[in-house]
């Protein structure tokens, strides 16, 4: 079976085959035999050519968190169709949402302002800390919903940013 994973902006393809109780994977055209064992429900041990790699794995639907060497990777299993769509996500219209229950400390951009990709647009406070939410795309601020001092819930839309170029088809 072939799986396609999205990690940030990158797409990875991997084919997994099982025969004789042995797994073989194909990545980037290279075939690799894998000795795999589940240690606990969320802990996998993989031995690749003698090299022992132990990973944390948490799957929820199509989202898979993998903990590898100290860092957490948020992978998403996507279909061919989703893959095409996802390559367009970097343009179009993006909503800036509250990632957790928090309070709006400062709104850094007004309607019509130009924003760069990864530029901070709203400052929120949660868990005694201020955090800056960033725009995932370059463009113009289309709407500002957030008001300083607002108490907001996870998922509240705070701002809408539209890319300069209309989404390609």
């Amino acid at each position, binding site marked *: 079976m072939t799986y396609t994973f999205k990690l940030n902006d990158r797409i990875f393809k991997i084919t997994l085959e099982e025969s004789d109780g042995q797994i073989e994977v194909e990545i980037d055209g290279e075939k690799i*035999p894998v000795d795999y064992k589940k240690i606990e429900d969320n802990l996998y041990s993989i031995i690749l050519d003698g090299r022992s790699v132990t990973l944390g794995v948490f799957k929820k639907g199509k989202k898979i968190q993998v903990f590898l*060497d100290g860092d957490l990777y948020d992978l998403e*299993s996507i279909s061919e169709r989703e893959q095409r769509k996802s390559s367009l996500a970097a343009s179009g219209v993006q909503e800036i949402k509250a990632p957790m229950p928090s309070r709006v400390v400062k709104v850094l951009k007004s309607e019509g302002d130009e924003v760069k990709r990864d530029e901070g647009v709203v400052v929120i406070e949660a868990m005694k800390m201020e955090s800056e939410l960033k725009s995932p795309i370059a463009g113009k601020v289309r709407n500002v919903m957030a008001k300083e001092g607002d108490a907001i819930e996870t998922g509240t839309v705070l701002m809408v940013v539209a890319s300069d170029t209309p989404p390609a088809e």
Partner: protein
Amino acid sequence: MFKKILIANRGEIAVRIIRACRELGVSTVAVYSDADRRSLHVALADEAYHIGGSAPGESYLKKENVIDAARKSGAEAVHPGFGFLSENAEFAEMCEKAGIVFIGPTPEAIRLMGDKITARKIAYDAKVPLVPGSEGAVSDVEASVVAGEVGYPLMIKASAGGGGKGMRLVRSKEDFESALRMARSEARSAFGDESVYVERFVEQPRHIEIQLIADSYGNVLHLFERECSIQRRHQKVIEEAPSGFISAKTRKKMGDVAVKIAKAVKYKGAGTIEFIMDQKQNFYFLEMNTRVQVEHPVTEMITGFDIVKWMIRIAAGEKLPFKQGDIKMNGHAVECRVYAEDPGTNFMPSPGTIEYLSTPSGPGIRDDSAIYNGCEITSFYDPMLSKLIVWADTREAAIDKMASALREYIVLGVKTNIGFLRRVMADEEFRQCKIDTGYIERHPELISPGERDLRPALIAAAIAMENSTASGPQSQTAAASSWKLFARRSGIMRSPLA
């Protein structure tokens, strides 16, 4: 000794205090908010009382509820931990009135050191160095006099200031006049008030603090220093004891002045004097924390002195049986605070459910935490998951041990700074102790892992997908055939992916 103590806190510090009580043969009473019914401090305590809603203001900060629980349970003393009511003089007073011992200093001492101006005055009177500068706002003439005394580089700061507005760094005398003019003008337009003050600019400042312990009989000891220079958002992330930077002479000087301050306010219990230090080991009083500190374990590791137990003993009227000379330093300890946060988005907190947890253990490793598989990290409280502390005979060995321990830390469900901490441990500047409070900002390359071989992650993800279908390789046996495969293939796994 008390028979029963109420712990007016939550999280790892509540657990830490419960353990200390148990070892002293003291019964423990936990209090908990709605969000904390499943918390570890409730599970570990002998008794547990609900004290209100999830927001701190509805529970852990509700003085009356805490006192009520103490009364109901028959607790003779309250340990406040840190944060919440720990530096609340009024709460300490309420305890006194209710006939319950507050495990900490007197309300008077809390009040004196809690007010920055008073605290600075006390330090000044005790001849403790303060950052040189003008005491309060100055005229242009006064400013230039003070500047002459303070020397360069110096800072001009707006009295009404904040956020960097009306603030000017001046590196030489020539630039002083124009900088003063600009600072005043900026202050006027920003705050409608052109008053400014002048202060020495501490370049590449280090945060170094002295741990104190004092009994009710006037004995005050210091337990050497901690270096807490690795900070993000003005919050400590990595702490060490001793500092790898200061000399024995500086250590003694700092200890002596810290003891002086404590004596000036008839301090009792555990407390910490925080200093800012420049790269020439000049140090200046910042403030005193009149409670146990998050990073107290590194001091415990190098002295063998159990700070939390002694807080309790002292509150019960025991006398310190040591003299300053009995306290010895041994080896080196490092603490890493493991946070539920995303270093990639400016260390933003990452609340959620811990879906899987594996923590390090072994020789010289201490993990002070209150998390477990399946526990929730809510946005009501601090996102600190755990304090990982290691001890070894030298700083280098301690850093190596921390690096090794961090390799065993696995957390799923929330983002953490574990990878970031691992990269700090491997960083040459950190290893050479070239650190100051600007270290993290100066090292954006440590934030993310960069390119690495992601094949194991992809393979694991693919297996997880496969396993979720019925026919997947649920738990393949370690087949002897692996042998053949290993033999057939070699040296193909070295190049990083992409």
